[in-house]
Every structure is written in structure tokens, then in C-alpha cells.
């Protein structure tokens, strides 16, 4: 029963963090939102009985991609400019 609720709640959080990542003007916050989305996605993979994919997603998506994005943001400007 708890697992069925988790299957409903976690995708909602994934969509919410993705929308945050698109809408945020602060690029560092957007990178953190992408990392949170990746972590929730790995949790979803785990409860869908794919622990192999979950480990890969947590290692690459939540850690290494975030590090690359933050290094790239550090070389440019933090805030997105208004169009």
C-alpha cells in the first residue's frame, strides 16, 4: 500500500523539480533542482526494482553532472539576464 502511494508521490516531485529547474532565474538553484530531480529519479528506479540503473543514476546524475554544471556556472555569470 505504501509503495503505491510512493509511485504516485515521487513522480509528482520529479515533475515539480523539473519545472523549478526550467523556471528558476538563479542558475545555481536550477542546477541544484536538476540534482534533486536526478536523486528522486534514482529513488523511483529503485522502487521499480532496477537497482542497477538507480546506482548509475545517483552516481552520474546527482553528483558528476551537478559538479560539471556548477563549474560551468562558476566560469560564467550566476543570474540569468532578463530578455
Amino acid at each position, binding site marked *: 500500500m505504501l509503495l503505491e502511494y510512493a509511485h504516485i508521490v515521487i513522480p509528482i516531485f520529479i515533475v515539480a523539480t523539473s519545472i523549478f529547474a526550467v523556471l528558476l532565474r538563479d542558475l545555481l538553484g536550477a542546477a541544484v533542482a536538476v540534482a534533486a530531480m536526478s536523486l528522486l529519479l534514482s529513488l523511483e528506479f529503485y522502487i521499480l526494482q532496477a*537497482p*542497477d540503473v*538507480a*546506482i*548509475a543514476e545517483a*552516481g*552520474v546524475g546527482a*553528483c*558528476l553532472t551537478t*559538479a*560539471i554544471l556548477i*563549474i*560551468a556556472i*562558476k*566560469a560564467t555569470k550566476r543570474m540569468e539576464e532578463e530578455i
Partner: protein
Amino acid sequence: MSEMSKIVRTIAAIVFPFIMIYGLYVIAHGHLTPGGGFQGGAIVASACALLLVAYGSMWTMRRIGEKRLSVFESIGAFFFIALALLGLFFGAVFFNNFLAGSSFLFGDIPMVGSNTGDMNTGGVLPLMNFAVGIKVVAGLFVIILVMAYASNHMEKKRGEKQG
């Protein structure tokens, strides 16, 4: 990326060996449990990324260097292909598992039925997991290291131009 404060550096130095051991565990148990060369390599590379963030890119570049990581990546690919070609040499086909059932390294026959898992099985697969692990660690970490070093270099150049 410049050096962070002493608190961050100390905690990173404490946490680093545990993440490293976990990554090596995932690589070494790749033929028994979920995970394997790629997953464990990603975990070890993220441990190295933690050191890079805490200690700065100059320190990490001095300790490791992208030339050495490039050599490690080539070593991983070479071992993988060499093991596959040894299968061609000892058996009949490319990627033949010639160590399985030979009672040599990783050569035991797995037990039948539910058991706790025998580390000494799998034949050539654990060795290939280690080769893939070395290649993935070098390949993923060299991206972050070179990006951080280049961003640090650019920042220094910009500072010189202004000052």
C-alpha cells in the same frame, strides 16, 4: 576552483575513504550484486570530485594530472580487449569465459539454489569489471578536472586584466 575552508577540507578528508571503499565494493561485487564497473567507477569518480571541490583544482592537478588519467583510461581499455582476445586464444570465440570452472582465479562453479554468494565465481567477468572501473574513473574524472582547471585559469586571467 580555489581551496575551501579548513572545516570543509577536514570533513572531505574524513568522508573520502568511505566513499572510495563503497565504490570499490560495488566494482568488486559486480558479478554478484547490483552494480558493476560503470556504477562503481561513477561512485569513485564522485569521491575524487569531492576532493577536487574541497582542495581546489591546482592541488588535485598537481597530485593526479590529466596525463596520468589518460594513461589509466588506456590501461583499462587495453585490459578489457586483452581479456577478450585471451578468450579467442584459449577458447573458440571472442569474449570466451575461459576462467569459469577452471578452479583458478574466480574459477569456482556457483552453488545451486539460494546461497549467500561466492566471491570466487564468474570467471573473467570480475576482471573485466575492474578494467571497466579503471576506465570509467579516469574518463569521468578527467572531464571534471580539466573543466575546473580551465575555469580557474580563465578566472585568474580575467583578474589580471582588471587589476
